[in-house]
């Protein structure tokens, strides 16, 4: 009914079924949703943002401000999709948005009648009283009424991906200048990417009856693409929008992959590319703008070139009685093509009076303006300024063209006004970018081809490629002459921005109220915001402002465009970083073993660590953890401590280097010995701690905390490369190479003796506390053994190549049966270190010093170590500073809470009475009570004193006694035994 018999670039043999608002319709392969809707006679597709005016299809591309629809059902639904850009596919489900009740009878159309009260800035002036109404009444109502489409509220079942592409030349847009550029670059051998947002390459040539080199434009496109596809150095990317131009030749691109199988496919439906281009050519063409007249927003009022495109590319009859309103030559081309297609063109109205009418057999008016239109759900007539009324159901409007300069602005380039064509052209262009074709303000095809050829030769030469062969393109002349903007004489509502319902009246109000800078105008009226980013409205709005201010438009200026050029779904930015792909997971070497034993895991950074190992019948985590502590202290337990950072430090100056990076001395550490080390930051604050073992004169092995493994390594590299570049020091992270296990408990030596090969003697005499050495285990597997203890028990840490870890765990537990060997997790590890009074991450929290930690004497005054001088600052080194001590509740039944603050007895819990805080707490199964470590002023001199531990969150106050931090085996007999 609305489809021509033969015209268009659609495959009429492939019929596609789709639905709109539940109505079953069909289109053809090659249609957009918009063209298919028009072919089915659907001009009304939605309601406007604020006034809920009926809205139709206004354009045929990404500039579309009105035809926004909701596509898909359930979790797959996606709002605010421009019907003009979505490629039709079988079973597509689309629904109109932003209406209450049926689309034709939207109850919210009452807003249109209330429009005098809803003009620009109304929300700044209303809803202010009574105050209590805002949250309970106004906001819920406004939120319900505002917005366009709706999200499903369910997780998006589609997948998205990202990628990286590299090229010599990125060509943005595959219209005539884009394809010419691509051809020249391809033949020269340059690596080229051609990206275009349309699914059909060719740009305006697909919708125009242009002649190129005596062939049709469509045929030229076809042949050119065929040739481009034959080059290995060319990557053609249809359905790919370059949405942003960033520094250093980096571009963001969104590729639509699977419209067709959207619901069924498990492949990503969109890919977000980062394109690295040595040079780029912007061939993004131009967008048509509208003209200002009364009620210029009705369905059936469309941009002139779009009407032509619907007719030529999709074989659509856009109306039974088509009229054209133009101020430039392009409107007449539309009239000509429509007439050739057999459409009924009832009248052409041109604002210019001094032109030669280029076509015959058409009714026209020169020097006239459209004043107003009528129609309910679609335009039915228009009225000219001479009072003539024209019956029409489709009005094609052309107010001239705006070069698509958006990407030239992404590095703060400001467009410049071109008086000749009354449009903004690129100003400062990003480095490495050239602009050709209509995007540069050239509208004649022959000029475009000549200009492109010249610029491309320069680009190729810059890239080191030579232009091969001769490409001479000539097109039939199409003059382009446009009238300047003129004042609208219409009364009533004249729309400037269809998407945001901004009218001339709104701009007038903004100017009256002092918002006459373009930036303020935009924000006050919302002109040029939302999904279309003002592609059809910005310049129109500026022209109104210019006329209101009686200033030339170049003086009024323009806002600049930011990325993205068109909307990019959040899902595409997230890419595959969802669920298990959100971040990498590091597994300990015994992970699988622990998993098989029902370990409960905890995230520590990227690592998953076994937290505890519940046994059958244990109902709470405390039961498991208490058992692990008691059994380890009674016999022997094993814990995977691979996550601690391990750094091999080698070189003639390794000892001196450690003296420099650690606060305490390492230069004199004997080979075969281990020492605890404290690392300070430049400002004297404790940075990290751990042990470092000396395996040879020039070989140390440092351990760091799990949390700081990376930052310590980075810090050491900085010290090595920048602070001591002449020293012979070499660093290597060996964290992943070595699986490391803490074996703790009175029977740890006996157990180790069973697995260590006979030649290694680990008796207390030969291998005392803080010894280290290489051993072999299980018949010749080389390992490193450290006699160190975090638990306060007789303990060792055994490091073996990771590949043997799984087998090791199986075998050591087999061997350890007679010792009742158990695995213990990080919770038991934490309990034992608190019982022993060892500082850990909670204590080295970035605000404590060696003195606070009770380690002040370790800071060697003989060495020039990092943080030494600053650690002597009065504020952090004087009398009465915070000291790490232990805390126990006077009532054993009470449970301490980490983070509680200490207040002297009898004083109110106020900041000025705050004396410190509880950093770590645990229930000690050995002492059968809750214990804690914490910092309190002069704590080391206050043992036995009672203070209140205040937890304002739970409004809880617990009386605690200050004690030594060493709750268990304070003399260290067990670990030295």
């Amino acid at each position, binding site marked *: 009914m609305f489809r021509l018999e033969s015209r268009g670039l659609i495959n009429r043999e492939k019929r596609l079924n789709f639905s709109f608002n539940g109505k079953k319709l069909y289109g053809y392969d090659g249609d957009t949703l918009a063209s298919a809707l028009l072919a089915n006679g659907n001009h009304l597709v939605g309601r406007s943002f604020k006034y809920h005016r009926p809205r139709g299809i206004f354009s045929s591309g990404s500039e579309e401000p009105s035809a926004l629809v909701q596509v898909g059902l359930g979790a797959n639904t996606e709002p605010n999709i421009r019907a003009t850009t979505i490629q039709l596919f079988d079973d597509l489900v689309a629904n109109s948005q932003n209406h209450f009740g049926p689309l034709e009878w939207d109850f919210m159309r009452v807003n249109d009648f209330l429009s005098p009260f809803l003009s620009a800035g109304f929300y700044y002036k209303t809803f202010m009283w009574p105050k209590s109404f805002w949250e309970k009444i106004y906001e819920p109502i406004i939120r319900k009424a505002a917005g366009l489409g709706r999200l499903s509220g369910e997780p998006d079942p589609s997948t998205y991906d990202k990628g*990286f*592409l590299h090229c010599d030349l990125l060509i943005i847009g595959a219209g005539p200048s884009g394809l010419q550029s691509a051809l020249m670059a391809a033949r020269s051998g340059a*690596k080229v990417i051609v990206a275009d947002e349309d699914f059909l390459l060719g740009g305006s040539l697909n919708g125009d009856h242009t002649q190129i080199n005596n062939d049709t434009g469509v045929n030229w496109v076809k042949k050119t693409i065929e040739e481009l596809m034959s080059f290995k150095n060319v990557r053609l990317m249809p359905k790919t929008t370059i949405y942003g131009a960033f520094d250093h030749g980096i571009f963001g691109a969104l590729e639509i992959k699977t419209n067709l199988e959207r619901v069924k496919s498990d492949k990503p439906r969109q890919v977000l590319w980062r394109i690295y281009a040595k040079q780029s050519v912007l061939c993004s063409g131009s967008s048509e703008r509208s003209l200002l007249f009364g009620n210029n927003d009705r369905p059936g009022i469309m941009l002139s070139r779009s009407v032509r495109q619907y007719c030529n590319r999709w074989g659509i009859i856009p109306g039974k009685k088509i009229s054209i309103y133009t101020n430039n030559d392009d409107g007449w081309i539309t009239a000509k093509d429509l007439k050739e297609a057999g459409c009924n063109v009832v009248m052409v109205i041109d604002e210019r009076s001094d032109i030669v009418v280029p076509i015959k057999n058409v009714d026209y008016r020169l020097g006239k303006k459209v004043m107003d239109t009528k129609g309910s759900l679609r335009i039915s007539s228009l009225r000219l300024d001479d009072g003539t009324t024209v019956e029409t159901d489709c009005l094609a409007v052309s107010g001239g063209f705006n070069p698509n300069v958006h990407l030239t602005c992404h590095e703060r380039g400001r467009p410049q006004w071109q008086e000749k064509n009354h449009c903004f052209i690129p100003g400062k262009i990003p480095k490495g970018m050239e602009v050709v074709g209509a995007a540069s303000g050239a509208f004649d095809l022959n000029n475009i081809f000549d200009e492109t050829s010249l610029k491309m030769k320069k680009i190729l030469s810059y890239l080191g490629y030579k232009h091969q062969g001769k490409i001479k393109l000539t097109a039939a002349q199409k003059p382009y002459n446009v009238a300047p903007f003129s004042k609208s004489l219409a009364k009533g509502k004249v729309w400037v921005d269809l998407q945001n319902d901004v009218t001339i009246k709104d701009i007038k109000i903004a100017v009256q109220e002092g918002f006459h800078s373009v930036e303020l105008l935009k924000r006050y009226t919302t002109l040029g915001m939302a999904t279309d980013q003002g592609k059809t409205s910005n310049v129109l709005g500026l022209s109104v402002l210019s006329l209101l201010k009686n200033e030339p438009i170049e003086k009024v200026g323009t806002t600049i465009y930011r990325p993205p050029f068109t909307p990019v779904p959040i899902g595409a930015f997230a890419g595959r970083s969802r669920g*298990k*792909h959100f971040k990498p997971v590091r597994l300990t070497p015994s992970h699988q073993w622990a998993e098989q034993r029902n370990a409960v895991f905890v995230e520590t950074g990227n690592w998953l660590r076994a937290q505890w190992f519940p046994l059958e019948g244990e109902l709470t985590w405390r039961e498991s953890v208490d058992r692990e502590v008691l059994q380890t202290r009674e016999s022997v337990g094993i814990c995977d401590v691979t996550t601690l950072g391990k750094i091999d430090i080698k070189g003639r100056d390794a000892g001196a280097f450690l003296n420099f990076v650690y606060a305490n001395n390492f230069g004199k550490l004997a080979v075969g010995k281990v020492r605890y080390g404290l690392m300070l930051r430049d400002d004297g604050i404790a940075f990290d701690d751990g042990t470092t073992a000396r395996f040879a004169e020039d070989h140390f092995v440092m351990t760091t905390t799990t949390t700081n493994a990376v930052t310590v390594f980075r810090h050491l590299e900085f010290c090595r490369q920048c602070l001591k570049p002449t020293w012979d020091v070499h660093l290597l992270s060996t964290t992943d*190479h070595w699986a490391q296990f803490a074996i703790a408990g009175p029977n740890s030596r006996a157990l180790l003796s069973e*697995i260590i090969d006979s030649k290694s003697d680990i008796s207390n005499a030969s291998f005392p506390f803080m010894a280290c050495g290489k051993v072999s285990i299980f018949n010749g597997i080389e390992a490193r053994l450290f006699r160190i203890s975090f638990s306060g028990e007789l303990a060792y840490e055994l490091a073996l190549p990771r590949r*043997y870890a799984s087998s090791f765990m199986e075998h050591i537990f087999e061997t350890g049966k007679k010792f009742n060997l158990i695995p213990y997790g990080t919770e038991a590890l934490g309990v034992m270190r608190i019982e022993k009074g060892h500082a850990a991450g909670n204590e080295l929290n970035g605000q404590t010093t060696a003195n606070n930690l009770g380690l002040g004497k370790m800071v060697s005054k003989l060495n020039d170590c990092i943080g030494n001088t600053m650690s002597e600052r009065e504020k952090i080194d004087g009398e009465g500073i915070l000291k790490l001590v232990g805390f126990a509740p006077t009532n054993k039944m009470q449970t301490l809470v980490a983070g509680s603050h200490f207040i002297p007895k009898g004083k109110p819990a106020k900041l000025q009475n705050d004396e410190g805080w509880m950093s770590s707490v645990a229930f000690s199964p050995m002492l059968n009570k809750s214990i804690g470590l914490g910092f309190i002023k002069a704590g080391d001199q206050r043992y036995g004193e009672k203070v209140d531990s205040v937890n304002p969150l739970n409004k809880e106050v617990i009386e605690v006694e200050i004690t030594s931090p060493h709750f268990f085996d304070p003399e260290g007999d067990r670990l030295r035994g």
Partner: protein
Amino acid sequence: MDKKISPTTPLSGLHSVIGNVTLKEVNPEIFCISIPKKMDKKVTSEFKRILKFDVPIIGQSSLNKNSTIRLIKNSLDQFFILFERNSEVAGVIKSLEKDFYITEQSDAWVGIEIFGKSSHNCLERICPLDLSAESFGVNTAVRTLMEHLNVLIIKTAEDSFLLLSASSSANSFLSAVETSAQNIV
């Protein structure tokens, strides 16, 4: 002590084919060679004497005659030497130890060999580097990031790469590579 413990690999010997991409776990022995200060000038001659092949420049690798040993230059003072497990190279390492600092790294890494017609397309989803023949020739070896993971990528043939990443995150890395292969449309 009569018990013996046995080795496992991070990906349990993975070998999978996804479309035109083949993924295979390879775990070469890897040793890091650090060059002591003031030994820089002797490196070329010593390496040539011991390894019998040329020293690559930074970002490149070179192979011995039988392609059983690969030497990668990571930085001014650091090389990686890779060889197949079970190769008779213990002597080589011992000889190198006399003049250079040698640290074994074999178990720190997981190796995934990726090859096939679509290997480039697969990698362009996660690898920020330009892997085209003009920019990334065979034997190029560069460290980069893929899905937040540190990776040493070595081009072993036109459509074949060896990817080395941390063994502790082997599963996450494999998942990233597999997802890329599956996501190619």
